[in-house]
């Protein structure tokens, strides 16, 4: 907060919360669920980034002669059907599952968000064309459509990312378009065009700040859906391919052991569930602090 003074009567008091201060004020209001959510997300991120340092063994190394060995000191969570260390695969799985889901969601947002806002302020024919395209894609059940496309193009990681991103971009397109349309109808957009502002200013400075909280909230939820879709595809065998470790695949491979009272197959499933819930906690908190239009809270 800075106060600079010139001769009266014109005096300028400038203070504005920086992003950091705003975040700190927001964190003071955070509930324990938010803190839990943040902790879990950071943990997952750390696992994904530092996987090679944290994992006791390599991702695909066969380290034991004994498949499906029980929990022991050498293999804290036992081994899988080929004798690979489950803990190591769980840690590497974070990198594959979380990392790929994040990249996919980011692409989906870039694509859906840009087209959505553009569609909202475009002439009617372009708007109809883009909306029609999005509706057509949405009309086909997502998982089945993804399976068909993956069967067609082969399930490499780039094609998984692109296919899931495009499918999810349709939802983001609809959200961005409808919320941007509401904003575009406001008089302050008319004020901007009366001033002679270009399209870029109108999108970035007038419309985007008004719909950004909604888009960020959607980012959290959409990330969960993408994550679950990829896990589901892996579980079905068309997602991330062996020997890469992935939580969805890991659940499938050891699923039969649930009936023997072994909780090992539940661990990757629990990691998926925990991350999903945590992201929702943090999104709720973010919506709460971003909805107020105040500098001084």
């Amino acid at each position, binding site marked *: *907060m800075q106060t600079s003074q*010139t001769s009266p*009567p*014109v*005096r*300028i*008091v*400038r*203070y*504005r919360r920086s992003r950091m201060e705003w975040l700190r004020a927001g964190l003071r209001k955070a509930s324990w669920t938010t803190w839990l959510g943040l902790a879990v997300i950071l943990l997952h991120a750390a696992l994904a980034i530092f996987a090679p340092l944290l994992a006791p063994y390599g991702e695909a190394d066969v380290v034991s002669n004994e498949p499906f060995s029980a929990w022991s000191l050498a293999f804290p969570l036992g081994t899988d059907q080929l004798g690979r260390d489950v803990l190591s695969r769980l840690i590497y799985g974070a990198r594959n599952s979380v990392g790929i889901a994040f990249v996919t969601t980011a692409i989906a947002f870039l694509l859906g968000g840009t087209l959505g806002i553009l569609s909202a302020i475009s002439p009617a024919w372009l708007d109809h064309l883009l909306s029609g395209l999005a509706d057509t894609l949405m009309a086909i059940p997502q998982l089945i459509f993804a399976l068909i496309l993956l069967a067609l193009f082969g399930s490499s990681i780039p094609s998984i990312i692109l296919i899931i991103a495009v499918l999810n971009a349709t939802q983001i397109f609809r959200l961005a378009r409808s919320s941007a349309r509401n904003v575009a109808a*406001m*008089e*302050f957009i*008319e*004020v901007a*065009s*009366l*001033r*002679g*502002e270009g399209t870029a200013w109108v999108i970035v*400075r*007038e419309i985007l*700040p*008004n719909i950004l909280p909604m888009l960020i909230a959607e980012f959290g939820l959409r990330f969960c859906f993408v994550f679950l879709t990829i896990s589901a595809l892996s579980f079905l065998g068309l997602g991330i391919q062996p020997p890469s470790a992935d939580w969805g695949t890991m659940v499938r491979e050891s699923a039969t052991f649930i009936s023997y009272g072994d909780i090992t197959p539940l661990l990757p499933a629990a990691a998926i569930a925990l991350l999903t819930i945590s992201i929702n906690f943090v999104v709720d908190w973010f919506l709460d602090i971003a909805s107020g*239009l*105040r*500098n*001084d*809270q």
Partner: protein
Amino acid sequence: MTNNPAADGRRSGETLLDIRNLTIEAERDGAWQPIVRDISLTLKRGEVLGIIGESGAGKSTLGLSALGFARAGCRFSAGSVVFDGRDLLKESEEYRRQLRGNRIAYVAQSAAASFNPAHRLIDQTIECAMREGLTSRAAAIGNAKDLYAQMQLPDPDSIGARFPHQVSGGQLQRAMTAMAMTCRPDLIVFDEPTTALDVTTQVEVLASIRRIVEEHHTAALYITHDLAVVAQMAHRIMVLRHGELVEEADTQTMLSAPRQPYTRSLWAVRTMEKQAEPPAAPMLEISGIEAHYGTFKVLDDISVTLPAGRTVAVVGESGSGKSTLARVIAGLLPQTAGSVSLNGTALAPSLKQRSRDQLRRIQMIYQSADTSLNPRQTVLDLVGRPLAFHLGLRGRARDLRVAELLDMVELSDRHIVSFPSELSGGQKQRVSIARAIAADPDGFICDEIPSALDQLVQEQILKRGPTASVMSAPDHPYTLQLLSAVPQMDAGWLDAAIAGSRAANGR
């Protein structure tokens, strides 16, 4: 509906509301600062107390305190609010909640924002009576229809079946007053109930409110910035400034012999003198304008000439094309025939083909500051953008100019970092005027005379240099009376403009 126990004991002379040494603080930059300081007031049953002051004086905060309510970010720090013998600030939230709507009602400034758009008027009107279980649904509906009739709403038997968007702004404000009356409250707090309405509708709504308050012998706190309104409504008037009491007296005394200089300055605006202006070259010439919405012809052969430094009022009924004319001048709706020329140069029909400088020279002021200010931009962004865009001001030069402009419209420079939602209705209107002045235009277009404008600001914009304005206003005797009081308004131009608008009507 006399089963409200309070209704039987209602008679004049008994004190209903007693506010003692009330101080209310608001949090700003982490520190608590008083926004209402040491205010005391008493209100007897059946009495109407007017609270007047400019925007940001703490009127609304004081009004809400009569309900024992402090807005988010505000707190009661001293004093008491005794309603019917019990201090609301010491009672439980449950007790206060039961009083609200039932014995103390609140009528807000924006009826449009206060009604739920998804429910019919009648359901919202009787909601309070039904919630308290005071009466059967049939009786409540009958009562609501009575009240609609008393508020002079058209077709009182069936208007309740409409949704809020199906009635006009004035009708909605009347329905809201009817809603406040359903439980026959002892006290109603009116917070600028007519400010968002245009001048003619305002007169009609005020008459209805005054009649119903008198008939039911309800006490009222009437909050406004408009002296003409408060003089009509109130038995007594309190003048507030910066959260402090300036003076308090009976309406008659206050009008005839105000004691404080500030009060006199409020009064003085009403008697502003017209200055004689020498004839000037035409700034804006509009000739033979035709405009269509689709195939529907809205404007037919309209011609108006606006000399520099004058104000032309375009007067006509709603739907006569006043706003359309404003949109044609601004270039938002390209005309299908005729021409608009500025300082002798013809303007392109569409604003997309006009130069930046041409756009700068005509500034539009919207009726609603709520929708014309981007809620995610601070006052600095809002007022500073035209300075940067049109005049190339950057950094400190721009900031200083913004502070200067805010000073011109009598806003404090601490508002420079505020978002619109942190400002009162009048302050928002001032920001939108400061933004229009920032571009240093030759002329303004005001769509509908903003009755939400404080007197002091009206003076400011009308006094400003050789600027011309086009104002649109509804066709009503009261409008003419009001417009003839506007300085720089020449009777001849006024007539010409009305003739032009009538032509539009007779399409």
